[in-house]
């Protein structure tokens, strides 16, 4: 395994170097907030969850062993925390208001109905909303695998390490999630959308 500078920082923190932890925090804070946001879609709650992840990392420093990549270790803490959050049902995802400059934000009906209008389709905002709803409805383990693959850029091997499962299980989780996406997003597909919206 290639030398992992982040693991070296974690070892330095174990040795009492507080600045090493601060460096890791600054490097991974945006990724952790983004990752948690994919599970709860509430920015304030996502920040709380990301802080929880770093508190767990801080508390686990004494037990840390650099046997795997630090990034994998951190995402494992984050994935477990977010999956527990979802499974406990502590959080009900909220529909966040889009940024005022975002396409479709001025449309008062953009968040009202279940199916978007063709105009929304043309703007692309509805597709984004449909993807968010699709992710929200995915089984938790499929969602975790898909988010780690598509948004966090982890390899199948890294996802298997994060989710503490086999590579073949990860392959199956991501494939099933992608097949489900083709069905859920079919009305927006260039090939099938015309028929579905007709």
């Amino acid at each position: 395994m290639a030398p992992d500078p982040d693991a070296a920082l974690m070892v330095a923190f174990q040795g009492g170097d507080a600045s090493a932890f601060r460096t890791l925090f600054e490097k991974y804070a945006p990724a952790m907030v983004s990752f948690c946001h994919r599970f709860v879609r509430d920015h304030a709650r996502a920040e709380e969850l990301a802080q929880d992840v770093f508190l767990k990392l801080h508390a686990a420093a004494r037990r840390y062993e650099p046997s795997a990549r630090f990034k994998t270790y951190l995402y494992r803490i984050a994935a477990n925390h977010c999956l527990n959050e979802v499974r406990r049902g502590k959080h009900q995802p909220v529909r966040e208001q889009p940024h005022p400059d975002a396409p479709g934000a001025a449309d008062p009906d953009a968040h009202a109905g279940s199916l978007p209008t063709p105009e929304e389709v043309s703007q692309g905002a509805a597709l984004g909303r449909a993807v968010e709803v699709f992710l929200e409805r995915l089984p938790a383990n499929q969602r975790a695998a898909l988010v780690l693959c598509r948004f966090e850029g982890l390899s199948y091997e890294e996802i298997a390490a994060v989710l503490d499962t086999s590579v073949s299980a990860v392959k199956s989780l991501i494939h099933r999630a992608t097949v489900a996406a083709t069905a859920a997003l079919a009305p927006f597909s260039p090939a099938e959308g015309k028929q579905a919206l007709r």
Partner: protein
Amino acid sequence: MNHPLSDLTAYLNGALDPERRAEVERHLEGCAPCRTERERLAWASSAIDALPAPPPPSPQFEARFYARLAAIEQPAPRGWLASIRWRYLAPLGAAAAFTAVFVVLWASHGRRQAEMAAQLELLENYELVASVGSVDGPEDVAVVAHLDELREGRP
């Protein structure tokens, strides 16, 4: 013909080993339904990828985290009762209680021994006087009770 449908997503994600990837590519060249499925999966994946990134952490994010960390590392001051280290004090207290009970029982036992000795001595006096047949009235009983003093020559 075995359609490699379950491998198509891994194929698109570059997660197949070279040998399997070559097999899937050979199959796709001659199988239109699998090519259609590959396009559907590729489109769905790109739609997911196009989801806007969540907002970055707020400016207060770091300060809030370190405030939470400080609260954990330096817990609020505790009351005097809570500050007692019961883990160490409890065994000492138990030992002290045991000693106190032992002392009380031992003292009680000593007192009973002394009382019994006095009763035995009195009984001996009675037996001695009774053996000469001279205990007739209350005055004789009082003399028996104080026979030791008389023996020692006290008034």
